[in-house]
């Protein structure tokens, strides 16, 4: 019997239980998938394979070229987003070039900061059975509100920065409460309303940027004034370090701790989770469904708003028409990140770091090898796809399915 051989049982013990392991294997599969994409889209590799039968040495050459190309791409992805051993060793031995050695990880953390905050907001909503597809609009609203307070009021940092951040939260709460109130009082479906509200906020962004209040003086384009330095999130290691990672990271850490406490320890979070897991039982147990809906949208929206203002105050410093648009739309990425992290704060931290690293590393890879940045998106998407199909991953890696720890789907379909 295969189960009884010791080798099998150790393998099973290592791999059988945790959803984390499935996610890890999904990452491996995503990288394999990315490698296939590299092979089929890189001319030198294809050329090498086309000559497969031309000479005795050709097959070996083809394999070598493939390994070189894929290896280089992934190596640069890693050194560009985490650290390069050589540069790090240089910094350790000489004490010089620390900034250089830490830049990749600093960049990854910089991108992960607002993403984590927004994803936590989306995750709390998911755990309550609510699909908040409007995180991007809520983050944008947070950015707009933050830009008002950060550019129009002038105060010392101790007041100005907190006010700016609070304004961002308020903007997100406002944008989140519209769909929340609509759902609670009219039964409108939150997916439709939040999704559509993104467009409303996009229009508000452009409008305010062209208004005289926010637009930078002398500008004709959709660019606002730069935030006062007193309203900015300063770099963690000082401007001189050249590292962009900023105090937003501290905010993200606080948010993660808060979210963990909220979901696992608070009474309101308990109500949220009960509502998400079984709305009928929640009602029978005396939980006020309307209040939960309104509050979850306020919290989820508030966190998205905080993510937006963190992005603005820590990274862009200046609001413009490209804020959170397209690839920068962290509110949309947050949905994927939250699902990847199984809507749990700690899982979301890892998922955000992974997504940020793939993005940052992808840019380094594009610069060094010419392989388009889109490969990173392909890998991100493939990983999520594999995570969403744990059965497939378990089959491929022959992981044991334990009936007691059967994976739960992260979401249960479009909540109503």
């Amino acid at each position, binding site marked *: 019997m295969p*189960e009884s051989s010791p080798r099998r049982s150790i393998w099973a013990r290592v791999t059988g239980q945790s959803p984390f392991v499935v996610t890890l294997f999904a990452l491996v599969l995503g990288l394999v998938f990315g490698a296939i994409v590299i092979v089929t889209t890189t001319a030198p590799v294809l050329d090498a394979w086309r000559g497969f039968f031309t000479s005795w040495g050709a097959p070996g050459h083809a394999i070598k070229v493939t390994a070189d190309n894929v290896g280089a791409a992934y190596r640069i992805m890693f050194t560009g987003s985490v650290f390069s051993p050589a540069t790090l060793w240089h910094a350790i031995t000489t004490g010089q070039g620390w900034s250089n050695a830490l830049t990749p990880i600093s960049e990854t953390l910089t991108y992960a900061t607002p993403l984590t905050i927004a994803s936590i907001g989306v995750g709390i909503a998911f755990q309550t059975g609510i699909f908040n597809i409007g995180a991007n609009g809520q983050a944008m609203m947070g950015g707009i509100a933050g830009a008002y307070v950060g550019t129009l009021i002038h105060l010392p940092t101790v007041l100005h920065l907190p006010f700016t951040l609070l304004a961002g939260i308020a903007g997100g709460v406002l944008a989140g409460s519209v769909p929340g109130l609509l759902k609670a009082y009219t039964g409108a479906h939150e997916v439709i309303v939040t999704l559509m509200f993104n467009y409303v906020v996009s229009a508000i962004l452009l409008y305010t940027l062209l208004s005289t209040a926010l637009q930078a003086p002398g500008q004709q384009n959709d660019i606002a004034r730069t935030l006062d330095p007193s309203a900015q999130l300063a770099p963690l290691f000082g401007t001189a370090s050249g590292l962009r990672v900023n105090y937003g990271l501290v905010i993200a850490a606080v948010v993660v701790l808060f979210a963990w*406490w909220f979901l696992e*320890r*608070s*009474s*309101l979070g*308990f*109500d949220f*989770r*009960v509502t998400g*897991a*079984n709305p*009928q*039982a*929640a*009602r*029978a*147990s*005396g*939980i*006020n469904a309307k209040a939960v809906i309104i509050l979850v949208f306020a919290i989820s929206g508030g966190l998205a708003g905080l993510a937006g203002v963190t992005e603005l105050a820590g990274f862009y410093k200046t609001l413009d028409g490209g804020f959170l648009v397209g690839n920068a739309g962290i509110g949309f990425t947050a949905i994927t990140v939250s699902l990847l992290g199984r809507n749990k704060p700690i899982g979301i931290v890892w998922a955000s770091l992974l997504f940020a690293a793939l993005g940052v590393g992808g840019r380094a890879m594009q610069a060094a090898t010419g392989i388009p940045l889109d490969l990173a998106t392909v890998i991100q998407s493939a990983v999520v796809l594999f995570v969403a199909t744990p059965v497939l991953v378990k089959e491929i890696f022959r992981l044991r399915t*334990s*009936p*007691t720890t059967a994976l*739960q789907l992260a979401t249960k379909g479009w909540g109503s």
Partner: protein
Amino acid sequence: MRLELRGITKRFGTFTANHRIDLTVEPGQIHCLLGENGAGKSTLMNVIFGLLQPDEGEMLIDGVVTRFADSGEAVRRGIGMVHQHFMLVPVFSVAENVVLGFEPTKSFDRLDHQRAREEIRSVSQTFNLEVDPDAIVEELPVGLQQRVEILKALSHDAELLILDEPTAVLTPQEIDALMAIMRSLAASGKSILFITHKLKEVKAIADVITVIRQGEVVGTAQASDSEAELASMMVGRDVNLTVDKVTVSPGEAVLTITDLVVRDDRGLPAVDGVSLTVRAGEIVALAGVQGNGQTELVEAIAGMRHVESGTITVRGVDITNRTPREVLDAGVGHVPEDRQLHGLVLSMSVADNLVLNTPRRAPFARHGSRNLAAVKSNAEALVTRFDIRTTSTQALVSSLSGGNQQKVIVARELSRPLSLFLASQPTRGLDVGSIEYVHRQIVRQRDDGIGVLIVSSELDEVLALGDRIAVMHTGRISGVVDPSTSRETIGLLMTGAHVEPADA
């Protein structure tokens, strides 16, 4: 077919569902497998049917060691299984369902309806199982749907028929019909393995009885053994099948319902002018055929359904159209009809479910922060007090058997100070041991001076528990009678007939 199991063991992780099970079914024999919910009956059946592979032991068919890779192989080897939940396509005809998977076809792969019909007629005739082959399955009563399942198994030349809790969904008449079919099948040489936890049925039909408890065979019994003997074997201790009650004199009114009108989901009046009083220290049992407004009445009391007109008061406090929270705070404990839908959050732990409607109450929370230590110690106390069988208080409530899930709800509701205890179908789907337990708890509440309103479609339960029995028919109370009233009279009231009230 002669089926023999030798030392079958099946484990799930560290949990042993079946431990060294020995069992022999002779040809032409009706073999009853008797056990409580969660005793491992279904696991054993799935092993026989090839859905699960045993970890140890062997299975012999007609003396030959056999191992099925899957259920398809089991079917080909002559084993038929009728599941508790039917595996039929509701919109297909009887004939189409029976031939499903083995369809006779004409040219171009068209289904040969004529041959399918004939096949069914011949099987029907051989075993005397009347079903119209052209009837649509979803339009048939449940008893006939089950007959289609049996036909399906027989049309695949089943020699051994496994019936998994077949009577759970049947009316008394349908059960009698099923028993007749089982006897005639056995007479024609088929072997039948009949799984149940209902003692009356076992005594009525079994040739041999094997009792299993906690995954192990605890012995064999005879149909002539008394129900009490069978029950004590099954549960592992003596079971009291009647409810012991001392007479107590009820106190003042706890629940007063006046001229209540409630609409159902389609907007039709489901409760149509009901007035009812439950006094402290008495059990009022609400009897009636399912769907006569009992569900809506209970939901209205619990604050989960809008009241059109009339009033509901608990100890003088008007709770008409109040929120569930306000009703709970008025001292109403509620065991809902559908425990998994309304009573529990299956993906949460036993401990969390035990504080589901009191999460904010001291000591379980303070300043909005939950006190998990208090939640845990509360759970440990209740698990011990109510004998909830669980591996730990942190185990997911979905991992518990139905009876223990029900105990979680009962424990939770009874752990608060109550004025009124409201229970809908409190023992549906539970085994003897759990039923006895739940009944004892209900009587204890009554003795402690709490008003109890029980809704049950089981007449036995109504008669055993009720101090007064209210019968409901088409949204009205057709009579309130004494528990000494004959079953026939109550049956008549359930059909809406007018009967002179025994208790004025």
